[in-house]
């Protein structure tokens, strides 16, 4: 350890390597066999269970929990993967507190839902660790499909299509597949290279060829894909970021939170990753929380999340907020940056309190400064390249039904497509449903 949390500037190794390792270990330790049985025992096997409805991929949760309870976690995993081939990642990253577990009747009864997320992990881990891939392909159809983007949406789509016997070329602009599973999700949610391992496991289905470093708009065109393939699926996610439009945004030390996180996810050695002493994160979503928590875990002395509306309006769940608070992150609500201070490098940010007036926010005139040597912008991602000829709505590719775009033969899903929350599990559901629709069209 060469530096400490008090070292000024943006520097690496603020904490000891061992402490860093502990900080970035599994957020929720996996359940052991006994814990899993105790947790599974709590499920009431509800009829038409609310948890199933609350799951964007509609996993049959009571059934898989009963399968765990009766000693067949492998069967439980199959129940999960039938609906959600990335059930392993979703078990780690789903905000269950706003999805299945919020709907659990025991949340209503006792304020303590069945531990669905961790039970899901218990079952899926077991099958994946054994290297078992419980699906096989239908006879080859001779149809070829191009899938753009190897994130959750693209992967779910490609897997389902491969299972139906189609041949898939999966293109991704980045050097690795996985999308935000590989580059975005907080480190402590997907430890030990899980994203990569899950990708390899998923590819065992066969029939999917991954081409990395191939970007639509640069190396590929939609017209070209439409000409070469029987169908096209777009799952490019949101590659762009919103600009802050605050004076001083170009100062050294001002960074996009997603880039900061991508570097973190790809770092071989966390002790070499530089982080500010005083970090200010601007935004209120999952990205803001993750950037703030991870800055703190890297050893920043102070981390402040600046959100322009009140707590209730914050997109990050209360659970995520509390997690951040428990790590020592400070929240400032109803406040917006009006100037980024410094002389070359950032030294702080001037903040003005806000108040809602109808739909718009206005400054109250009261301002204050927060010292900062690093500012992470997390104010939302946008569609990076808008593919030609596709209708756009609300900044996303307009789709109807199961991901049909305005162009015949082209489907889209995940973050880049309209509708649904920007969540891993939603992307999986949309990719899967589009694949089913594509299959019907291809074979119909």
């Amino acid at each position, binding site marked *: 350890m060469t530096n400490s949390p008090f070292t000024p500037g943006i520097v690496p190794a603020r904490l000891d390597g061992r402490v860093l390792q502990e900080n970035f270990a599994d957020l929720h330790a996996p359940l052991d*066999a*006994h814990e899993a*049985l105790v947790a599974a*025992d*709590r499920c009431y*096997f509800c*009829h038409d269970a609310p948890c199933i409805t609350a799951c964007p991929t509609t996993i049959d949760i*009571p*059934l898989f929990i*009963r*399968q765990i*309870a*009766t*000693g*067949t976690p*492998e*069967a439980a995993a*199959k*129940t999960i993967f039938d609906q959600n081939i990335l059930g392993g990642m979703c078990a780690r990253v789903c905000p269950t507190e706003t999805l299945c577990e919020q709907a659990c009747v025991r949340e209503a009864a006792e304020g303590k839902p069945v531990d669905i997320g961790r039970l899901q992990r218990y079952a899926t881990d077991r099958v994946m660790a054994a290297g078992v891939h419980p699906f096989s392909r239908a006879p080859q159809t001779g149809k070829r499909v191009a899938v753009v983007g190897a994130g959750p949406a693209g992967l779910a789509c490609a897997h389902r299509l491969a299972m139906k016997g189609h041949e898939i070329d999966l293109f991704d602009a980045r050097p690795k597949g996985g999308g935000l599973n590989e580059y975005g999700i907080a480190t402590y949610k997907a430890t030990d290279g899980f994203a990569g391992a899950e990708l390899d496991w998923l590819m065992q289905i066969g029939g999917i060829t991954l081409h990395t470093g191939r970007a639509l708009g640069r190396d590929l065109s939609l017209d070209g894909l439409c000409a070469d393939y029987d169908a096209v699926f777009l799952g490019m996610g949101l590659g762009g970021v919103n600009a802050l439009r605050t004076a001083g945004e170009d100062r050294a030390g001002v960074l996009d939170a997603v880039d900061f996180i991508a570097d973190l996810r790809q770092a071989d050695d966390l002790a070499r990753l530089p982080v500010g002493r005083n970090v200010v994160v601007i935004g209120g979503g999952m990205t803001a929380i993750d950037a703030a928590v991870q800055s703190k875990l890297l050893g920043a002395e102070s981390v402040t999340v600046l959100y322009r509306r009140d707590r209730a309006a914050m997109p990050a769940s209360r659970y995520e907020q509390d997690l951040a608070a428990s790590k020592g992150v400070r929240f400032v609500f109803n406040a917006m940056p009006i100037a980024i201070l410094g002389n070359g490098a950032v030294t702080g940010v001037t903040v003005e309190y806000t108040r809602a007036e109808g739909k718009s926010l206005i400054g109250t005139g009261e301002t204050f400064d927060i010292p900062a040597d690093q500012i992470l912008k997390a104010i939302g991602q946008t569609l990076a390249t808008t593919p030609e000829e596709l209708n756009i709505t609300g900044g996303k590719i307009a789709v109807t039904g199961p991901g049909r775009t305005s162009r015949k033969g082209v489907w889209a899903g995940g973050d880049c497509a309209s509708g649904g929350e920007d969540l891993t599990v939603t992307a999986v559901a949309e990719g899967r449903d589009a694949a089913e629709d594509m299959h019907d069209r291809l074979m119909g």
Partner: protein
Amino acid sequence: MADLSSDFLGIKSPNPFWLASAPPTDKAYNVVRAFEAGWGGVVWKTLGEAGPPIVNVNGPRYGAIWGADRRLLGLNNIELITDRPLEVNLREIKQVKRDWPDRAMIVSLMVPCEEQAWKAILPLVEETGADGIELNFGCPHGMSERGMGAAVGQVPEYIEMVARWCKQNTRMPVIVKLTPNITDIRYPARAAKKGGADAVSLINTISSIIGVDLDDFSPQPSIDGKGSHGGYCGPAVKPIALNMVAEIARDAETRGMPISGIGGVTTWRDAAEFLALGAGNVQVCTAAMTYGFKIVQEMISGLSQYLDHHDMALSDLIGRAVPNVTDWQYLNLNYVTKARIDQDACIKCGRCYAACEDTSHQAISMSPERVFEVMDDECVACNLCVNVCPVDNCITMERMPAGAVDLRTGAVVTDVPADWTTHPNNPAARTAAE
């Protein structure tokens, strides 16, 4: 996925999971839902003779006992056979069988103990296209007071007589459903066989009072302050049913007679145990009434995974444990085990200590730091600590290897088996030796 398709008396069903004759099978609506959910077959709710329909109580019919977290462990009922008109049931049975030809459709019957009554109803059932009949000689309440149900099932001669009437008057396979409310299940089973029955099914419910209200002193369920005994079923009765099934499976006179196992089947494991003890298939009532028809999905996936894992066909499982059911006198007295506590798994609740210290053999020590250890010189291997420990697999029984000294007896453990029949303390054994 293992092949679960089942053949019981030539009656084919996609899996060995049938619904027992009870409310879940009382009408087409339920049975169709059950088939949609995946059940392999049903035994239709018991039909009585034509005439004015059966009357049920209009107050509560069921009572229950629960385990922790209000998990239903035992169910008690004072319900009678179907209270819907015979012709309606027959019409529905015919329709459902026609719509679901691959599922087993058995019709349960209970009519008075006169040949004419059986002769009258059998052709009506045959006409529905049902696959077989089950004779309800088991219902322990209400009907038994009228000389039917358990009143017949408790008299082996009646069982034999009615089974014979049925065999003589129908081409359908005949299953005799036995009551557990007797002292030795082998006698009614032998009678069924003598009467020509193709199979037995068991158990029906056990006579029971589920509880008493301590404020108004009415037995439960209370009908205007009074209660009568009902029939007990659910997870709590499984051990009783397993024993009865095994007794019939290994009895020299009834060995090989097909058995449909009933009583507390709740998960695939329960079903597998019945099958291992000689049942050719299983029937389920309480579990479906508690959790709905969907549980059959877990039964199917679980049994299938189990068979795949053990590389067994369904037929290999059936009866697999029967040769291992024996009498006490043949148990190996040289099989010596000791309890072992896994200190990493132990959560230090002390329940094993309380049990052993207060009620068993004072064979567990407790240190001031709450470390619990088994003292081999006192442990008789009774298994109580294993049974009361809340943590799965924390306390286990470990066999002592041959050559080791059992510190309790001072004897050297041998791997040569020896049982009571040759034990020196057995007067009969001594006589034989002399």
